[in-house]
């Protein structure tokens, strides 16, 4: 179910687009393991001008920026530096992991790079050099940035020795402090001219020779190059291809030969033979890199001491809960002033447009559609910025990996990744930033499953709806003399949403997003001081991408919803005949109510009334539900318009009083406690939020998943509300 959409996407990309990309500046790739300071180095090298795009057809982001290289004469050449997603090896199981190989070799639609910069963590040299060795064997031109050299102290590995072993330049850097950056730039500039290619050759076991050659013969023509490159690619295929992998562009012949080679080799393990030979070479070479090998570098010792507190069964969880509380509180409460400010600004701007523009369609479109739509978009920015600030701090400091470590046992029971915890928690404030934060998970299956269940958490937009219903329909009495009924109901709604989320995760994880569960392998990087510049940049990039890509969808939806509830305009004869100045507010409100009843939205509400009746709702609530698609809390203000009360601001008292009096044709009240319960269940489960759908579309690059989300959530909401209302009536409640 997971990766099949890729070829179609590729076909959609116009050829001219590809050409343009090729003809641009020479491309230099930044490749390295996760947690090597690659992003910080990227920011150091490119200054302030990164672009965030996407790799062709897949949801992995492609960050690129201009790297300017000056020579001694002062002339500068510019190259495009591309940040390749961090990986431990080029071998791959999924098309996402395959990006690294394709980008390095310029396969398929990927523009061929002129040079690769391999970033390695000096503190974990041998493991980092595994990836470097793969580059060397592929005979791509590269230079090595020996990063985080500051953390290794006096026992730091020597770059000259590494350069000697691989036969390519190696420069020591400390991206956090900016040391060695100029040296790296110089090395890159001269390497662009000389294209240093390694000539490393490993002694693989003789038994591997035949299978490697057999597999190399079946490589696609576009992949082929020197004999060494073909052999390296054959080993890549032997390591990567298996029956149920999710790789793309592997010819059937190549698959068959890989399978045959593995079968013939049994009981020997080709994977082990290849990987062990490489580590054998690296371990041997490592003796030259160091004066003395310290298996417990100082950085690691410090981290272990910190972990003793932060992973402690009691203190560890206490600190964890505290950190999570701060994040949650900030999203829930601290973002509020900024949100209000943006809302007020949008309101003032709409007023201004209303006052300046001549009466008519354009005025309404600008003030009620366009400006309201922009307001609906920017209102998310404070929470997005705050959440990504925290995610950045957690990731950069190394604590996020500990969150996954602490919570894995619990999250695994739900079929979710440990890293899903922070996004899920954020879902209690707002699903939009929470869905954007699922990026912290590497695998698409984990991301998708988390995204699909996040909107079930009780977000803050549901609270005005719950508050209205609870305050209007349930008595402020105490149960058993001490339990407040209203507060209890609110707590019940939270518990209900958590239960529904867990059930949905369990069900969807076994059905819609099956995919294979890959066993957890989590690296716990050493604790480091977060780099504020890197975090600030990521906050800015995330906000910008949201504005650009999800913002347009939200804007269009707002305008469509506005048009639905405003058109067609009622016959002027039907509404108040008196001059506007002499109209009383209540007459104006009655006009508004009439206008909304006659609008497309009103007609739609009436059309779906038969479907809503079994849940206990009438067409007016139907209109409210349609309006709530802009954002759940809009339900309250739409109801205010429908009932002719006018704008419902913070004080919903008149609306509460009004709905209590509402009766159906036979004179029975519509708003009963049972109906209120049914309505709250509906709001808890239904996907009443176009912004959520817009960000899911942005993160999955397809409309299929947002459509699925809308269908599964709103479908379940309908069934559950039906169950509550009809079940309640059968039990004799009203």
């Amino acid at each position: 179910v997971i990766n099949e959409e890729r070829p179609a996407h590729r076909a959609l990309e116009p050829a001219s687009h590809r050409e343009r990309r090729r003809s641009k500046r020479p491309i230099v790739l930044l490749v390295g393991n996760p947690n090597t300071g690659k992003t910080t180095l990227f920011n150091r090298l490119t200054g302030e001008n990164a672009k965030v795009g996407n790799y062709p057809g897949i949801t992995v982001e492609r960050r690129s920026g201009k790297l300017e290289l000056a020579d001694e004469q002062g002339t500068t050449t510019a190259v495009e530096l591309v940040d390749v997603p961090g990986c431990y090896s080029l071998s791959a199981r999924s098309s996402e992991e395959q990006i690294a190989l394709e980008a390095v070799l310029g396969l398929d639609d990927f523009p061929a790079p002129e040079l690769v910069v391999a970033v390695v963590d000096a503190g974990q040299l041998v493991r980092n050099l595994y990836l470097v060795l793969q580059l060397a064997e592929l005979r791509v031109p590269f230079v090595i940035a020996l990063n985080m050299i500051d953390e290794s102290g006096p026992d730091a590995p020597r770059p000259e020795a590494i350069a000697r072993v691989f036969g390519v330049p190696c420069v020591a850097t400390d991206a956090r402090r900016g040391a060695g950056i100029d040296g790296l730039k110089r090395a890159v500039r001269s390497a662009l001219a000389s294209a240093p290619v390694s000539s490393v050759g490993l002694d693989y076991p003789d038994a591997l020779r035949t299978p490697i050659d057999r597999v190399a013969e079946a490589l696609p023509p576009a992949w082929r190059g020197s004999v060494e490159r073909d052999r390296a690619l054959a080993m890549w295929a032997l390591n990567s291809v298996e029956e149920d992998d999710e790789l793309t562009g592997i010819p059937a012949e190549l698959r068959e030969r890989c399978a045959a080679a593995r079968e013939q080799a049994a009981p020997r393990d080709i994977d082990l033979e290849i990987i062990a030979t490489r580590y054998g070479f690296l371990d041997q070479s490592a003796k030259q890199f160091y004066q003395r090998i310290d298996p417990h570098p100082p950085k690691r010792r410090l981290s272990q001491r910190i972990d003793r507190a932060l992973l402690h069964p009691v203190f560890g969880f206490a600190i964890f809960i505290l950190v999570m509380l701060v994040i949650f509180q900030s999203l829930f409460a601290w973002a509020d002033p900024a949100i209000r400010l943006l809302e007020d600004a949008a309101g003032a701007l709409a007023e201004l447009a209303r006052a300046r523009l001549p009466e008519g369609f354009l005025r309404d479109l600008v003030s009620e559609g366009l400006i309201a739509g922009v307001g609906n978009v920017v209102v998310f920015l404070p929470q997005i910025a705050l959440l990504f600030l925290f995610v950045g701090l957690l990731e950069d400091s190394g604590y996020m990996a500990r969150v996954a470590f602490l919570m894995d046992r619990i999250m695994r029971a739900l079929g979710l990744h440990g890293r899903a915890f922070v996004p899920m928690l954020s879902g209690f404030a707002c699903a939009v930033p929470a869905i954007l934060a699922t990026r912290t998970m590497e695998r698409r299956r984990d991301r998708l499953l988390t995204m699909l269940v996040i909107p079930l958490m009780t977000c803050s937009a549901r609270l005005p709806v719950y508050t209205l219903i609870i305050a209007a329909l349930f008595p402020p009495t105490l149960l058993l003399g001490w339990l407040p009924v209203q507060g209890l109901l609110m707590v019940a709604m939270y518990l209900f949403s958590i239960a529904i989320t867990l059930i949905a995760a369990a069900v969807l994880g076994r059905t819609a997003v099956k995919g294979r569960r890959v066993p957890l392998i989590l690296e716990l990087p050493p604790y480091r001081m977060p780099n504020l510049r890197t975090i600030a940049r990521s906050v800015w990039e995330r906000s910008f991408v949201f504005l650009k890509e999800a913002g347009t969808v939200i804007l269009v939806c707002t305008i469509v919803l506005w048009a639905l509830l405003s058109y067609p305009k009622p016959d002027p004869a039907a509404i108040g005949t008196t001059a506007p100045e002499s109209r009383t507010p209540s007459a104006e409100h009655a006009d508004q109510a009439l206008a909304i009843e006659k609008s497309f939205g009103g007609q739609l509400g009436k059309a779906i009334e038969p479907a809503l009746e079994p849940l206990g709702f009438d067409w007016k609530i139907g209109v409210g539900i349609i309006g709530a698609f802009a954002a759940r809390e809009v339900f309250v203000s739409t109801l205010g318009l429908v009932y002719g009360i006018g704008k419902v601001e913070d004080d919903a008292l008149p609306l509460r009083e009004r709905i209590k009096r509402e009766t159906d044709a036979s004179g029975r009240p519509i708003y009963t406690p049972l109906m209120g319960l049914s309505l709250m269940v509906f709001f808890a489960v239904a996907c009443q939020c176009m912004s959520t759908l817009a960000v899911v579309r942005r993160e999955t690059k397809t409309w299929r998943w947002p459509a699925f989300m809308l269908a599964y959530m709103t479908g379940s909401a309908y069934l559950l509300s039906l169950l509550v209302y009809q079940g309640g009536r059968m039990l004799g409640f009203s």
Partner: protein
Amino acid sequence: MTLDEVSLGQTVRVERVGGERAFRRRLLELGLVPGTPVQLVSVAPLGDPLELLVRGASLSIRRAEASSVSVARLEDSPSSALARPAVELADAGCARGAP
């Protein structure tokens, strides 16, 4: 003995990595080739997963998967094994993998 049976703080040597192929390959690529010393550093407060120290890096895997990694006790005490350079121990493993 398998990796999930190691006691806290003990250092052992990898003998064989079993389990599902993708998982096995990933562990090998992270440096858990036969012969590599591995120390069980800590266990998550809820009993799972485990934190291992491999080649100077902390890796975390679950008990269920750790049970598919066969390990052998080091003849000498853990503390002196850690003081020895990792390379010497790893050589033995790669000789087995690459005759």
